């Protein structure tokens, strides 16, 4: 009876939507359509990136302009590991985890002790240090040309067939999403959100703001680095562009589009963003102009993003009971 109650507490609209989405993504592989699978892979990778980003942005209320750093660390650690140490994509992707963990802790020590404004600027500066190091350390990173030939076929796994790589990404995607869902439901998820809602009260309740922020940053950094690692294996190429701050601002835009205060917001944002960049951007060259305008319109009129808009619609038509989007 107790277990059943625990289980019921875990189930809500989010997990149902998530499982449906994972199932749908699985179905896409059966169509065997190259372009759909390409888009779906990008959606999964950027979905992971945006969800990881939003732990910091939506939960802890910390605006980072340097997430390209973590993405880049993931991508470059896979590239360097598979090219120089052990030729296997799976081990390479797993290898990026401890590296990202270490990076997050260093970044945390440097940035988390100051206010939020400083955090935004410092993460920007750190990601630029990393970016210029990637360009300058030509012997290691290949400079602005980047690293090419990251193997899909390794000693342990062979991902060279598109379908196999697709499932490989899907497994990581599903595992990370379910992990984040558990975090969201857990006590720590609540504490991390408290960080964003009312930071000043946490010390009174006996929690260290710094430690909690560090936890948020570490989770966010590792998840973002995993996205970067998958990205590097997917394209077999990695260039310093991924560490430039404008690239790191993309998950921010995704989180805002979807709704940063919703668990699934960044994922919804990633789906919209990737679909738009891969289809519309081909025809409308200056689509960033529209993106900027959309961003401002959202900040001025609906800060809840798409999900917030849907929720207010549901509220208007008294559908709230059926649409339990909220945390």
């Amino acid at each position, binding site marked *: 009876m107790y277990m059943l109650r625990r289980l019921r507490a875990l189930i809500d609209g989010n997990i149902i939507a998530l499982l449906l989405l994972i199932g749908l993504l699985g179905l896409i592989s059966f169509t065997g359509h190259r372009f759909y699978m390409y888009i779906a892979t990008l959606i999964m990778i950027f979905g992971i990136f945006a969800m990881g980003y939003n732990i910091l942005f939506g939960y802890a*209320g910390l*605006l980072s302009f340097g997430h390209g750093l973590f993405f880049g660390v993931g991508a470059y650690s896979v590239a360097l590991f598979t090219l120089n140490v052990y030729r296997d994509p799976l081990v390479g992707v797993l290898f990026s985890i401890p590296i990202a963990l270490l990076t997050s802790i260093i970044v945390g020590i*440097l940035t988390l*002790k*100051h206010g*939020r*404004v*400083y955090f*935004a*600027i*410092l993460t*920007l*500066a*750190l990601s*630029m*240090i990393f970016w*210029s*190091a990637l360009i*300058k350390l030509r012997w290691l990173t290949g400079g602005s040309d980047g690293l090419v030939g990251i193997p899909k076929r390794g000693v342990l796994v062979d991902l060279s067939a598109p379908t196999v790589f697709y499932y490989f990404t899907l497994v990581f995607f599903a595992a990370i999403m379910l992990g984040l869902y558990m975090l969201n439901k857990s006590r720590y998820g609540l504490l991390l959100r408290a960080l964003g809602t009312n930071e000043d009260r946490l010390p009174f309740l006996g929690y260290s703001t710094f430690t909690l922020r560090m936890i948020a940053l570490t989770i966010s950094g590792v998840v973002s680095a995993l996205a970067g690692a998958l990205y590097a294996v997917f394209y077999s190429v990695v260039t310093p562009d991924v560490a*430039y*701050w*404008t690239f790191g*601002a993309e998950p*921010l835009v995704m989180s*805002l589009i979807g709704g940063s205060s919703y668990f699934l917001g960044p994922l919804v944002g990633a789906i919209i963003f990737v679909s738009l960049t891969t289809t519309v951007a081909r025809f409308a060259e*200056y689509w*960033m*102009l529209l*993106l*900027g*305008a959309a*961003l*401002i319109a959202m*900040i*001025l009129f609906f*800060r809840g993003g798409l999900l917030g808009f849907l929720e207010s619609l549901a509220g208007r038509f008294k559908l709230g009971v059926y649409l339990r989007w909220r945390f």
Partner: protein
Amino acid sequence: MDLTSFLVQALIGLYKGSLYWILALGLVLIFGVVRVINFAHAAFYVTGSYLMYTFYTYTSNFIVSLIIAMIITGALGAIVEITIIRRVYKLETIYQLLATFGVALIANEAQKLIWGKGVVYISIPETLSRGVNLGGITINYYMALIVVTGLLLFIATIVFMNYTITGLRTRAVWRDPVMSEALGINTRLIYTLVFFTGTALAGLGGALTVPLISVGPGLADYLIVTAFIIVVIAGLGSITGAYIVAILVGVFSSILVLIVPELDIVILYIIAALILLFRPHGLFGER
């Protein structure tokens, strides 16, 4: 390393620092008074550059195009403040940053649309391109002009802030906007004015840069980071601090480049990270 090249490098640093200062000044003013981190600052700076390019190629009058570029950029800034930024004052800092980020995206893309994706460049006016030869490197009058402009802007800002009635009002708003409003100061007007001045200064800086760097897409993304770093090292909102830090960083980094050439762009970021590690609120920050 001989003394001449050292001195020349220091002079170049002085001029680089002055450029950093002109870039950072508007940002400091806007943050200090309006309390908004203007992410679009570099976008305005580059707008100034493009406007300068256009007007200079049509009129070939340096001073006139400089002034026109400055005023138009300031006017654009004021329009942005009235239509967008004013609405987000009451929101959290994050949303203010994001609103200006949106403005930056629009501005960058609009620039590509108007001036194309290539780089634009104008040559230094005849009279200013001459100069003194020091140890193989020519220091021209244009560099001197920039150093002098920087110094004049610093003096003008200090004088304006401390010895005029509008400056007094601005400082009052800077300290305590609510109290100032209670005392009958039109804070809205002050905000718009500061935004106008800040972006106009950015436009001036941008206009002065065109003869030195070829201006193109992506420059703003790069410059905003430099500007932020100067401001953060100085401490947010400190005008004197920003001037000193900009000059110091300029001189220091150009001398360091002489010693360790391969560090070039990294130096600035490393200095910033180190200083913030030991002095979180910057060298001249309050709190």
